[in-house]
């Protein structure tokens, strides 16, 4: 048994006492006005002191969080280097920066299109947020559902801010993404007759969440990785991209690479570049813990921004409602939304349910923060939290449901002596997803830089200002494939002129002209947790 405090144990008893009664009824849903109110008052995106206005670059005058401003307006790593661009170490048709789900999908499609493809990743292929996505992947493939209903769910859930042409592709190509993955051998949860087992996610109006137990992302990622390796696509691992290279016409033409271990600098020349670098949780915006992998430091946004890539909605982040709040060893780790899909409620320290469990993520997270600020949270080692009443799943779905449907969760807590079948768990919102990113058009190309494609979490605008569960695993596949196919066509018509890094120098001059003299090197590449308590 985990070493809970007496206060926590007392509170847990209250949760047990009300469980049976709560199982029978769902908490009422919030009205549109109530949602707006709780977001404005409690969502971290609305804390104005956490933001500053960008002084240079394509989004000059717009506000972003301090931590992002620091890296977007940081000092380039190549400024003081003498790099010979005339003798590239690598030459390829398509260079993919990042080797998670989006990068790997892009690589497979570009390879299908006949391009010579190369991937670089600062860690290993698959060390990515994709690997950790637990809950599932949306696609409107059931008879009572349609891509149009999916569109409305996602558009409304994203506060009517998604770029319609991107969302159109996301929902229209979703069923084919599932078919494609299934055809590669991904093991989706199915009924004996082949019908997909699907559930709700926060904000969905149809049960369209497909899953591979609660290893959905891992199962997809390891399959894509295996396929990339089968095709012999070169994956240059432990090698980061630290700057984009352009040609004298201003087209993107490759990247400066750095070996993460030896610090050797290498030059990759490419006719087309795809940024698939993922998110930014490891910047720990506003001091939040994160569910993200070790390398999520917004590198792609920094590279693109310095080269003139416009960002969209860079000010909006997703705080997943349920990060682990206890045990302290896994503080911030993701507790999949599927736990709530399967029937677990959010309960305060008095044993009362205080919000409908499957509101959209931003509303649910804000409601949890609100409940804690009202004094109804449970004190934890690192702050406070509320209960997620996991034993309800066994009551509602029958004994064994947890082991069958969310084995990773059972294992994660089991390691610390917490049996989630019998005891509820403590959770608090955790920094989960970068809603914003590089602005692209429907073919995946940056709206402001020729030859630069973007896929996955590094894109902004697919979801708007909030994202529904299961639409991120979907977007990495759909837009990874789009970027790969587009790049696979585009490279054939590209002729590169001489390579240059002049844009880096002019960005530096802009910084100085704006009175900024940054010392922080960016991209950040990895967080530094040495000699300090890690978040």
């Amino acid at each position, binding site marked *: 048994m985990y070493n809970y405090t007496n206060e926590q144990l007392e509170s847990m008893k209250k949760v047990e006492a009300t469980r049976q009664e709560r199982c029978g009824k769902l908490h009422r849903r919030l009205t549109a006005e109530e949602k707006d109110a709780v977001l404005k008052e409690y969502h971290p995106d609305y804390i104005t002191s956490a933001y500053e206005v960008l002084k240079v670059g394509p989004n000059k005058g717009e506000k972003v969080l301090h931590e992002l401003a620091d890296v977007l307006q940081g000092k380039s790593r190549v400024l003081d280097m003498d790099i010979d661009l005339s003798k590239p170490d690598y030459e390829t048709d398509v260079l993919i920066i990042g080797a998670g789900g989006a990068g790997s999908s892009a690589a497979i499609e570009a390879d299908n299109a006949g391009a010579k493809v190369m991937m670089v990743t600062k860690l290993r292929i698959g060390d990515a947020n994709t690997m950790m996505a637990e809950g599932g992947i949306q696609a409107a493939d059931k008879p009572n559902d349609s891509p149009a209903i999916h*569109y409305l769910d996602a558009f*409304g859930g994203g506060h009517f801010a998604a770029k319609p*042409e991107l969302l159109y592709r996301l*929902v229209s190509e979703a069923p084919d993404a599932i078919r494609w993955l299934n055809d590669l051998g991904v093991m989706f949860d199915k009924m004996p007759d082949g019908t997909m087992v699907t559930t709700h996610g926060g904000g969905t109006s149809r049960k369209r969440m497909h899953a591979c137990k609660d290893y959905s992302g891992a199962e997809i990622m390891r399959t894509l990785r295996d396929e990339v390796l089968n095709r012999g696509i070169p994956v240059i691992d432990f090698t980061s991209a630290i700057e984009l290279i352009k040609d004298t016409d201003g087209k993107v033409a490759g990247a400066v690479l750095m070996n993460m271990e030896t610090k050797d600098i290498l030059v990759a020349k490419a006719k087309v570049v795809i940024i698939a670098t993922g998110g930014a949780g490891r910047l720990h915006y506003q001091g939040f813990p994160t569910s993200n992998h*070790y390398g999520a430091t917004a590198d792609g946004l920094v590279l693109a921004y310095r080269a003139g890539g416009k960002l969209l909605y860079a000010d909006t982040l997703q705080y997943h409602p349920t990060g682990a709040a206890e045990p302290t060893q896994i503080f911030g780790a993701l507790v999949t939304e599927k736990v709530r899909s399967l029937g677990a409620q959010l309960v305060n320290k008095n044993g009362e349910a205080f919000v409908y469990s499957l509101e959209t993520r931003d509303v649910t997270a804000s409601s949890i923060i609100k409940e804690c600020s009202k004094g109804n949270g449970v004190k934890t080692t690192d702050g406070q939290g509320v209960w997620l009443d996991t034993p309800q799943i066994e009551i509602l779905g029958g004994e064994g449901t947890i082991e069958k449907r969310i084995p990773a969760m059972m294992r994660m807590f089991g390691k610390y002596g917490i049996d989630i079948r019998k005891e509820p768990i403590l959770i608090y919102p955790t920094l989960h997803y970068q809603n914003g990113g590089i602005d692209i058009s429907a073919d995946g190309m940056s709206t402001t830089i020729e030859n630069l494609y973007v896929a996955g979490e590094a894109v902004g605008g697919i979801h708007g200002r909030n994202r529904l569960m299961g639409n991120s695993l979907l977007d990495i596949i759909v837009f990874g494939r789009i970027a790969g196919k587009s790049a696979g066509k585009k490279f054939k018509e590209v002729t590169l002129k001489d390579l240059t890094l002049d844009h880096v120098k002019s960005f530096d001059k802009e910084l100085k002209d704006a009175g900024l003299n940054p010392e922080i090197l960016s991209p950040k590449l990895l967080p530094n947790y040495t000699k300090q308590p*890690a978040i």
Partner: protein
Amino acid sequence: MENMVNVYLFGKKYQVPSSLTIMKAMEYAGYQLVRGCGCRNGFCGACSTIYRIKGDKELKACLACQTKVEDNMYVATLPFFPLVKEVYDIQKISPSEQIMMQLYPEIYACVGCNACTKACTQGLNVMQYIAYAQRGDFESCAEESFDCVMCGVCSSRCPAGISHPQVAELSRRLYGKYIAPETTHLLERVKEIDDGKYKELIETLMNKPISELKELYNNREIEK
């Protein structure tokens, strides 16, 4: 004062708080990790680690991000292990026993020592799933191995030189593609979309003013 324990990182002694995981203890000691650290949440298999508690005969294996330090723990990370990954074309192979014979014949040299199972950082019955693979029972192999994070510790302990995680990966792909029942409603929907059935419907939505979309969204019917 927090309770401190002694850990020996690659043999060198450090004092660290007892509440830390091995990974956080390394960082606390001053290591800036590049290798051996990926998702930090037990899914990616980057941080396989072997350790022995002083005075204990048994060599244990774990994921550094998922395991708490203990007093007198001797730790060596295993950030890379040379698994053998055979290359194949998933579109051309078939789910028969022969495929294992061709690609991973060493599985038939398993001596049944069960060291793989004892070493598994996920607590899987590794030897059992290899036995299923030997028999060409890919469904059982896929199910039994499903929670594998491919950290490779099993293979590091195997006297027969089996790359268990790769055998399991092949089994899962064979099962997912060829053996699991086909999903008719999925294939039908893909065809409908290819035929343009929903194009107009979505475009109508795209062209509506936001106020109307809000109305539609707030009053949409929600499946029970």
